[in-house]
């Protein structure tokens, strides 16, 4: 394993988004992971529609909440093609599912989902193998986060927020995950948060998934 790895360095990560007051973090993390997985395969980096997943993923509750695993299950079962964000833009409210007449779309071939709670070493390998990892965390204390590495003030087994891990850094005294959030670029470290590796801080390794494109 390299001591530092970040998919952003490969120019395969789209800019940080804001979910506004829509509780659709679960859709953001899944769609953003698919964007990068698609680009890693040699395709152009394209912003895909989060709103499409919010509106159409019937096992979830749109802006009222949902789960990354349910969204991936739905994408895998239906082979729905995610269209470009420009064709199905984000509205920050749950809308009616529709299918724009588009020749372009990205579907997934499968997905993986594991609990890596005592195997964060392997989780680093899987981040490089599969692409960014959608994870769920206890993010209650993130309300006040400004920067630095989160090491306290959150619990495992109490997840309430979904985010996307794009990399890790083990070059300093405290190794940390590089985590993309969906609260805009003005929050945290330009929209990202760092979480200590190795102690399942905030439950970051409890529910880990990645789409295979």
């Amino acid at each position, binding site marked *: 394993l390299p001591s530092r790895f970040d998919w952003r360095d490969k120019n395969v990560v789209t800019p940080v988004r804001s979910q506004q007051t829509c509780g659709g973090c679960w859709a953001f993390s899944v769609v953003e992971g698919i964007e990068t997985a698609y680009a890693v395969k040699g395709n152009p980096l394209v912003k895909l529609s989060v709103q499409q997943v919010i509106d159409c993923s019937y096992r979830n509750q749109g802006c009222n*909440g949902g789960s990354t695993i349910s969204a991936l299950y739905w994408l895998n079962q239906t082979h729905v093609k995610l269209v470009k964000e420009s064709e199905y833009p984000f509205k920050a409210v749950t809308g009616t599912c529709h299918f724009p007449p588009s020749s372009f779309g990205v579907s997934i071939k499968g997905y993986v989902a594991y609990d890596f709670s005592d195997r964060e070493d392997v989780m680093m390998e899987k981040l490089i193998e599969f692409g960014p990892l959608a994870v769920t965390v206890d993010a209650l204390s993130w309300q*006040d986060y400004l920067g630095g590495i989160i090491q306290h003030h959150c619990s495992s087994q109490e997840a309430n*927020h979904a985010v996307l891990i794009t990399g890790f850094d083990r070059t300093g005294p405290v190794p940390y995950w590089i985590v993309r959030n969906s609260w805009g670029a003005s929050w945290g470290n330009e929209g990202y948060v760092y979480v200590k590796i190795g102690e399942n801080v905030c439950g970051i390794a409890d529910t880990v998934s990645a789409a295979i494109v």
Partner: protein
Amino acid sequence: PGTNQFSRRLKAFQESLKRHSHLNSFSYDGNGSARYGINQFSDLSPQEFKDKYLRSRSELCPKYGHLEDRSYNVD
């Protein structure tokens, strides 16, 4: 000023300042510990914040084990 909403936001903001002080008391110099302070969510109570932004539910996933290591790349 003078509205119920203003009072509610002001109270939430004042509570946030107390919370920041507590959260930062766990930070130690030199190891890059997280810092907590005023940001765009500081005028929300924790419950309001949770209701608006923390709407993901978690699902149990199988534990990753050595079985996966062994079977990977096998037909």
